[in-house]
């Protein structure tokens, strides 16, 4: 299971964005806005559900 931490990053306009930092476990990391991370998680769950329906 990936180890995910969330960090707050301040943008040039002063707004704050939360980013997900995913530790792949071998010194490799993936960084993405938390909104993207959440959407990908939802999409994965949705695609699994869709394929389950076809059983």
């Amino acid at each position: 299971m990936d180890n995910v931490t969330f960090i707050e990053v301040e943008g040039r306009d002063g707004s704050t964005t939360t980013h997900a930092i995913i530790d792949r476990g071998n010194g490799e990391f993936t960084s993405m806005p938390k909104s993207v991370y959440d959407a990908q998680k939802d999409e994965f769950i949705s695609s699994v559900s869709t394929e389950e329906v076809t059983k």
Partner: protein
Amino acid sequence: MALNKLKQQYTDPLQVDSLNVNETLTIGKNISLKGSVKGQILAATNSDTMGFVEVGADGTTLVANSASATGMAWAGPIYTAGKNVIINGNFDYWQRGTTFTNSGAGLYTADRFTSTINATGTNLTVTQDSSVPNAQSFYSTKFTQTTSASSVFEYASRHWVEGGNFAILAGKTVTLSFWYKSNRTGIHNARIYSGYLSGNGGDFRGSFNINVANTWQYITLSTSIPFGSITSISGSLTGAGGFVDIGFKTAPVIAETISLSAGDYFQISQVQLEAGSVATPFSRAGGILQGELAACQRYYYRQGGLNYYLFANGATNSTTTKAIFRMQFPVPMRIIPVAIDYSGPLQIDPGGGGGVAVSTLTQGTFDSNNYAASVEANGTGFTANRPYNLAALNSTTAYIAFSAEF
């Protein structure tokens, strides 16, 4: 050749002095001009002689050729960029590495290839392999299950296809071809899913039989599903159009599962999906290597590999915790990258030493598009308002990558 046969059958050669347009020549006997094998073509070789164009090889094209007795000859196979909608189907590019342990569902391996796994006890290793079916490839991809697995509902390599690339197949019969090798004889599966295209996209689930273990077999599957009934497309040009799965098992219509043993594997090579009902010889989607790499980099781009690889020039802002860099992509990406992959150690360096370690990288949301990204290096102890380089810190394995994958 055919006329000679005709003359041998009739002692008085048939002679017609003249025949006007729209007049009909009627011969009171049956005349049979027969070839000797399927696919021969009868053609004029001169003003009063005929000859056969002999059978062409699969995938070749008949072209005019004045040097040939019949004026025609088989040419090719023609190597055509864009015919194949599968990018990196020859497994030429592996930007992310060449060995992937415990590659769960959805993790990319060779460029453009991921997996779809739905089973209990999957311990999957995906590797670049030098076993190939013929001299047209350097590598294949190999999926190996390292422990036993049960309730395997789905276990396959997956290739996502962009909407615009799938749309060119709309309304057509398509043919999926590839080379496949496995230790498991019996039924394996392939699936073509176009359901992300609105406009009556569908789902083809096919199977093929592996007769001999551990031996490359050429597989072709032709089908009017899922594209044949599509008459219009209203999906996104750059969004997901669908996918192609190949492997031990693809998701079936009726619930059924299989079990796998430790060491079970499958390998695939020269994957091609094209319009038409006949598999033609494999072509890279991008034509030559340069085109294929650019096609891959539309979805994923990685750089690094030198001890002090210089990724970009930039500067800190008014804080001591952030430096901002602009990184240009070699080709426009499919969309604004959705993620940055990186591995350290990374540093920001004012030049000539004095580098400071970078703890995390994030993509600036303010000024990134599909041509270039704003990358923010986060850490502590930076000097505010100072130019910096973003570089590897004595590591050939440090890298930064951008993903615009599905």
